[in-house]
């Protein structure tokens, strides 16, 4: 065992050393960058294959709207899977909450805001009820949520009496179909959206730079400089470009703002707070975590409650998008959500995975769905291809880990 206690490779080290360090770093972090490269490659492929349709403003906006509810749920599912569990009920819960909202708003004429809040509370309650059995009675989450899946599928049917209920009032629909208002009033261009994009990109880049400076002060920056610069620039210009494209259509969709906020908040929670760290510890080794004073039961419980609430939010978004609640809503969505999280690098055993990874995983699935539909590939082939991509991503993960 060599005792390499040097503080990493300094920036002014010889070029050969730097190149070697970069190579080592890339090998060590293949997974994290690999998934991002994979998304870019897939987008580039479909951009070419569809003759530029994929990234047309209208299609890009559509892509985000179509996948918003999957992404919202993937954020919650990531926490559940990191904690070492799974939630199969989210699709049914999404459908159930949509039905509940329809009954309250359409049948009972309840104000849509009050109904929305009640629906989120109901979702959290459903998640908590399932988490209760998983956390405090150690009933396997697979079983509890499989039961939940059946129960809420049934309750959706019962609530809607087998019918579709709709339409929703216009204000409610705006959750999914609205765009942020533009105070500048430019014709055909939503300037505020672009400005928001530029602001967000600048803040993200600023945070990344500050973070790196802090790292440099306390010890080794983990990433070689070239990587850091390339990644930060890519994200910076990527966001500005995307917001330009969308500004050119109708601006940023409301649901995009909601999504972006969720991603930012949950990224922060998972990577920078004690709560997040503890959830990873539980997933990594629950016994060791418990014996270190971490309340594994309560955190598991909260993770499920949180999942239920996000599934409810996704349910509202989905119902607003369809402008009706149907008994079939949400069927098999749980599989797309779970696939997104695993493509994003989470481990079945728990303790591994990132929010951003899960979101990228969801986008990979979404871009493939969208691209293949534009190309007119049949749903039969689409399913096969998506299945194989999921398998390939996980095989890549496992092989990569074995080598390391």
């Amino acid at each position, binding site marked *: *065992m*060599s*005792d*390499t*206690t040097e503080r990493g490779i300094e920036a002014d080290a010889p070029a050969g050393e730097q190149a070697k360090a970069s190579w080592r770093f890339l090998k060590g972090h293949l997974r994290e960058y690999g998934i991002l490269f994979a998304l870019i490659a897939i987008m580039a492929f479909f951009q070419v294959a569809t003759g530029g349709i994929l990234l047309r403003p209208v299609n890009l906006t559509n892509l985000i709207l179509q996948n918003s509810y999957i992404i919202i749920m993937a954020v919650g599912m990531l926490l559940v899977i990191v904690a070492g569990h799974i939630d199969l009920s989210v699709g049914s819960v999404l459908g159930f909450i949509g039905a509940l909202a329809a009954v309250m708003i359409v049948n009972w004429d309840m104000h849509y805001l009050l109904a929305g809040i009640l629906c989120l509370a109901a979702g959290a309650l459903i998640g908590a009820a399932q988490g209760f059995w998983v956390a405090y009675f150690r009933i396997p989450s697979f079983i509890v949520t499989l039961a939940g899946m059946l129960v809420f599928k049934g309750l959706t049917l019962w609530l809607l009496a087998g019918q579709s209920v709709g339409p929703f009032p216009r204000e409610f629909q705006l959750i999914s179909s609205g765009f942020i208002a533009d105070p500048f009033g430019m014709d055909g261009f939503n300037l505020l959206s672009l400005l928001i994009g530029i602001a967000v990109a600048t803040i993200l880049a600023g945070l990344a730079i500050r973070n790196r400076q*802090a*790292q440099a*002060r*306390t*010890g*080794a920056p*983990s990433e070689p400089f070239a990587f850091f610069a390339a990644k930060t620039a890519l994200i910076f210009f990527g966001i500005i470009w995307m917001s330009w494209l969308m500004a050119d259509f109708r601006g940023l969709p409301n649901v995009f703002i909601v999504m972006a906020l969720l991603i930012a908040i949950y990224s922060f929670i998972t990577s*920078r*707070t*004690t*709560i997040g*760290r*503890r959830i*990873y*510890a539980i997933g*990594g*080794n629950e*016994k*060791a*975590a*418990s*014996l*270190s*004073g*971490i*309340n594994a039961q309560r955190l598991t419980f909260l993770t499920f409650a949180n999942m239920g609430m996000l599934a409810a939010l996704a349910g509202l978004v989905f119902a607003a998008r369809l402008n009706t609640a149907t008994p079939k809503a949400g069927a098999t969505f749980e599989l797309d959500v779970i696939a997104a999280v695993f493509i994003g690098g989470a481990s079945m055993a728990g*303790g*591994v995975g990132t929010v951003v990874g899960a979101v990228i995983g969801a986008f990979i699935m979404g871009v493939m769905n969208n691209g293949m539909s534009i190309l007119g590939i049949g749903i039969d082939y689409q399913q096969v291809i998506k299945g194989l991509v999921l398998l390939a991503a996980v095989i890549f993960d496992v092989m990569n880990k074995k080598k390391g």
Partner: protein
Amino acid sequence: MPTILEMRDITKEFPGVKALDRVNLSVERGEIHALVGENGAGKSTLMKVLSGVYPHGSYEGEIAFDGAPQSFRTIRDSEAMGIAIIHQELALVPLLSVAENIFLGNERASGGIIDWRETEARAAELLDRVGLKENPKTPVGDLGLGKQQLVEIAKALSKDVRLLILDEPTSSLNEQDSEKLLALLTEFRRQGVTSILISHKLNEISRVADTITVLRDGSTVARLDCKDGISEDDIIRDMVGRSLDDRYPPRDPEISDQVALEVSNWTVHHPIDAERIVVRDVSFHVKKGEVVGIAGLMGAGRTELAMSLFGRSYGRDISGSAKINGQPADLSSVRSAINAGLAYATEDRKTYGLVLDDTIRRNISMAKLDAVADGIVLNRARETEVAERYRKRLNIKSSSIEQETVNLSGGNQQKVVLSKWLFADPDILILDEPTRGIDVGAKFEIYTVIRDLAKQGKAIVVISSEMPELLGITDRLYVMNEGRFVGEMPTNEASQEKIMARIIKSGEPAT
């Protein structure tokens, strides 16, 4: 007698450690050959080389079995030659029956269809041979540990074993079951089966063994013929080989009069079988600056005692009281136990101590995460600083604090666990087998840490199955057996014989 097994100049290296250095082992046909040595002397490694767990080519040296050179690549190869190992941790499937376990992987079947009548008849025969009176249909999980061991032996016999290796077979057995097992071994000797017995219990060895090979620090230091009349002292001298003083850091205890932890009438029931009492009416205390040892055999209830104290992590129907620094302490959850100033470093660091896939940094901060956070937001700089400090202080050999603990050696993993608890800054630290499975150098470093902590006024409880260790580093000793405390003595008046005498005497009236 002709030689059945000859291992010559076996050298086995792990990264950074030479586990075996030109070890020789020569076993004669039909004898009971004892292999002794301290933990970490290389006994288990040698047996893994022999059985093919470490395949031919991963070590140097030669193995000859039955006069022919052997190069085992897998366990199956050695089994095919009639070599069977029975490990400390039994490899039985608790839900399957005795007969099914005996023929697991070796089913009495024709064309894939199991012949149950033959299976059971053969199993009954084998059970008879090992002297176990049980129905072959009984699930193995329903049997006690002693009987399960016999099932393992029956399983080995079913494969026409010619060399039977038993790794600490009696360490978890009570006196009676141990007796039975030893009688069985002498019976096998009469039938011509050769056995290698790995054991720490020198009284058993000097009674049944024909020849003894002593390992120390990865080398063969002696081969003793028991016909010459060997005493336990002779064996110990060869095992230890040097005076105890060198293996333990010198210390002059500064024990305060203040009692840090006082436990009274602590009783714990088994978590599943509530009728069973695992810890019975135990009372003890530790003073500030004192190192107290708890001696006992495996299964005496020491770990259960410690874990039940530490936030009721073990057992049910716990009764008794605990005072910390004279005040009644709330030990109802791990969190409150930590807050009350108690810490417990587990005996099983991989299962209970570490998040193996996490880095050294994340493991060290785990028990006191709030101290490296502002509110709920982690302060990465402070966390890094803490981890670096402990890495230096405990000399954790690693590439950086960002190394995953799964890749560390046992000694360094143990140091990470210790770092975690040192960072939590407890008043009382319970260390459960703190040096299990780690090399001599790392042991010394851990002893030094323990000594320094005591000097700072911490109260330390060390649970250990290695009596020399307890005698070397503690100030006072408690002896535990079958859930009860059966003796207490100042360490300078204690000896291995005295401790064993307490254990054995306490066992007599109870059984």
